[in-house]
């Protein structure tokens, strides 16, 4: 669409656990987004954020994260599946903003050590995404058997994920672009 500003689609790494394999997934996705013309991105690692745990919600808003989310047009969330759901700290971080997410596209990459590729965590993410104002895309990424999917240096060992990720990003970028046009130009009736 007619907009001189590049789309801004950060990649959010949603776990702080030591030994997390999701790091490899997030870095792979970051590179894939960076290859897209007209799109800028950065990695937001929730391990590097500092949030108190004696309060929650917008009362603990982090100014830097808020600004990044405000200027984002879409978001890729990389989340491992812990006990069939998302990490509690990911929810804690996401809950600190609201206005920053409204009418923006989000795509979710599920990560698991087993064969299901985070299908359950993706399903469990959908309800809070909607309540936060995000618009979810209908194309997910499922990184199954993640400890066998990357080598120790983080290199992807299954090239088929490149093509699948391309389809995922096509959908996410279309949605982010369309929603940006709507946010900026179409008034609420």
């Amino acid at each position, binding site marked *: 669409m007619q907009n001189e*500003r590049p789309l*801004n689609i950060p990649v959010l790494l949603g776990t702080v656990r030591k030994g997390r394999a999701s790091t490899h997934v997030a870095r792979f996705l970051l590179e894939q987004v960076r290859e897209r013309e007209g799109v800028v991105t950065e990695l937001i690692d929730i391990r590097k954020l500092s949030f108190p745990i004696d309060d929650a*919600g917008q009362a603990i808003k982090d100014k830097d994260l808020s600004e990044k989310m*405000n*200027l984002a*047009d879409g978001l890729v969330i990389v989340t491992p599946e812990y006990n069939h759901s998302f990490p509690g700290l990911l929810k804690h971080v996401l809950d600190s903003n*609201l*206005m*920053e997410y*409204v*009418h923006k596209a989000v795509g979710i990459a599920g990560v698991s050590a087993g064969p299901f590729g985070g299908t359950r965590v993706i399903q469990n993410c959908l309800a809070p995404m909607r309540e936060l*104002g995000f618009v979810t895309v209908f194309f997910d990424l499922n990184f199954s058997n993640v400890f066998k999917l990357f080598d120790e240096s983080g290199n992807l060992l299954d090239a088929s994920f490149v093509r699948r990720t391309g389809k995922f990003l096509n959908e996410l970028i279309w949605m982010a672009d369309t929603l*940006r046009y*709507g*946010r*900026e*130009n*179409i*008034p*609420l*009736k």
Partner: protein
Amino acid sequence: MAETKAKMICPDCGAEMNQHAEKLIEPTTAEEERRMDPELGALVEEFHTCPKCGKGAARPGC
């Protein structure tokens, strides 16, 4: 729009912003509950985006 109010002005670049959404927010504190719309049972929040720089902003609605 349901209510006509002055356009919000972008805090970053000064352009007129576009209101694209509003949401009912459940009060989480006693102070917010006092400000709650009794008919809607919630607070109304408006969401605006600047067409010039892309900045988002919110303000209480009615």
